């Protein structure tokens, strides 16, 4: 089937002609999308692209390096607040502000990676969780960060280009997301990526093989935080307004849910997970307006539950999806995709 004959074939980005064709089609459709789609759908696509960045970033940490993080909302917040503050207070141009706040996030990731050297399982979970909580609390109470009221995002402008509408933002966000995805896919084919994977499979074995655990574990945290920081910075522009309550513990769980649904240790899976789950999130947000389902749920809530609480159904469905996927399809959507592909390849046998 796909036998690799030498190293260069192994590190190729796209290893078959079919794949290359679909890749080009994908780029073309991405470029054409904003010219044919409605405004709300473009907003949705932006949201998806941002979540895909986070999912890939978290997947580098969870899926490839085998660490766990319940505090990624913290990095997301650092990215968002960093970008906004650098642009309003220090008048940095947009690209510089975005990259430097992502670097700040990466630095915090490195710091968080230090205790992670000695912790695993539940201990690592609580340490990362504590970090996420601490960031939100600090941001909520410090006046520099606008306190509970939050901050308004400045206009996105660099050079002659300004992005006011979702359509103009789309080009910025999707380009960045695309580049970061390529970078992630390439990273996993390098020495660094292979070190990450070796650590996931067995950190002790990796260390005996000469992988520097201290370096690569903290690096995994830093890279993951960098991705999340970039996504956070972009999210500030998409929302137009940021406040601490949007970076809570639940958000960290959602990020983890994206990764799990997409499939651990797969870039393609992360794209699927980010896109599908964001779509679900946005649809469930106004579940009452859905045809048929909405009416049933409305009458059900009037009779048994509470109509005002109906939007919380998103939380129930997300929870169930997580549980059922982990129980029945631990590889997520990517595993499903692989099985479908294999099924059709050998069909009708």
């Amino acid at each position: 089937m796909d036998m690799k004959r030498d190293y260069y074939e192994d590190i190729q980005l796209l290893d078959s002609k079919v794949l290359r064709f679909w890749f080009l089609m994908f780029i073309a459709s991405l470029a054409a999308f904003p010219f044919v789609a409605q405004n709300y759908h473009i907003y949705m696509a932006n949201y998806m692209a941002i979540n895909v960045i986070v999912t890939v970033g978290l997947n580098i940490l969870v899926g490839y390096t085998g660490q766990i993080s319940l505090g990624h909302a913290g990095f997301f917040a650092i990215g968002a607040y960093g970008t906004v503050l650098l642009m309003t207070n220090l008048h940095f141009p947009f690209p510089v502000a975005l990259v430097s706040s992502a670097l700040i996030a990466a630095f915090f990731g490195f710091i968080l990676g230090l205790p992670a050297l000695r912790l695993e399982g539940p201990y690592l979970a609580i340490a990362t969780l504590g970090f996420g909580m601490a960031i939100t609390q600090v941001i909520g109470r410090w006046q520099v960060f606008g306190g509970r009221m939050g901050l308004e995002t400045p206009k996105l402008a660099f050079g002659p280009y300004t992005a006011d509408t979702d359509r103009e933002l789309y080009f910025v966000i999707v380009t960045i997301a695309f580049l970061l995805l390529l970078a992630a896919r390439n990273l996993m084919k390098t020495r660094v990526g292979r070190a990450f994977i070796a650590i996931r499979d067995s950190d002790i074995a990796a260390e005996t093989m000469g992988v520097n655990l201290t370096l690569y574990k903290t690096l995994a945290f830093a890279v993951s935080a960098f991705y999340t920081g970039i996504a956070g910075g972009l999210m500030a522009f998409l929302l137009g307004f940021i406040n601490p309550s949007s970076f809570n513990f639940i958000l960290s769980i959602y990020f983890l849910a994206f990764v799990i649904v997409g499939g651990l240790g797969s870039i393609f899976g992360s794209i699927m997970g980010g896109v599908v789950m964001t779509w679900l999130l946005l649809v469930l947000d106004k579940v009452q307006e859905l045809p048929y389902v909405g009416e049933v749920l409305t009458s059900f809530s009037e009779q048994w539950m509470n109509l005002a609480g109906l939007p919380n159904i998103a939380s129930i469905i997300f929870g169930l999806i997580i549980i059922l996927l982990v129980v029945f399809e631990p590889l997520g959507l990517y595993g499903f995709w692989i099985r479908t592909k294999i099924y059709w390849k050998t069909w009708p046998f």
Partner: protein
Amino acid sequence: MFLQLIISGLSFGSLYALIALAMVIIYKTSEVPNFGQGEMAMLATFVAYTLLVTHGHSFVVSFIGALVFAAGLGIFLEFVFLRRAKDPNILSLILITLGFEMVLYGLASWKWGAEQRNFPFPVSDFDIINLGSAVISYLNIATLLITLFLMFVLFLFFKYTKVGIAMKATQQNATAARINGIRTNRIMSLTWALSSMIGAVAGMMLAPIATLDPNLMLEPLLKGFAAAVLGGMTTLVGAALGGYILGIIENLFGGYVSLEFKSVVAFLVIVLVLCFKPSGLFARHYVRKV
């Protein structure tokens, strides 16, 4: 001032200790920190509230009703979801319990909304006893006493009853326990029931201090988890002590340093402690053999 801070620290700490105990009991058998613990307790508290206020039953009946509900919920979650996981690793187990958390939270806020309610507790928070420079409310005393009583009962349970000893055996080595004729699956379900009941007691004692809404247990759960990690996830005594220590540290920090960052300090302490004692203060560090 100091005495006052210690007293309220102990009172909060005993709630953290209960949640920590509940988490550790599950952690030792199922090897997963149960993130759904808080929401399980919150739901049980809402059941108690409904029995008490909507249906007008007496407090004792509602209390027992909530405990029965909590036990049933624990068994249900373990039996229906956790047991079905094939070849689970630590990450997928954590995710399943996070899934519980989301489902239960969603259910509670769908049914009861974000409206804040007062949970009527027979002991008041406003009747106080003067202790020199400090005051202690009846509710604080009740919390402390109930917690100590519960810990004592747990101690007796694990020491002298057949089920308790079977639980300990399952925790130490499930395969060996099974060979010796213990139905480890059933024990697993019972562990979840027991832990869920302890959590429910914590929830019902917390509700009169805070207000009853679906967010009731969000922060206490994290604190309880932090307490368990602080003491060591593998020792019951350690977890309980961790709860008290965390409660006191938090209150002292809130009183002397900064009230604003009171809830952050718990996590900073945890991270610092874990840097030096990766398995918690009171647990022996477990060295993995290759």
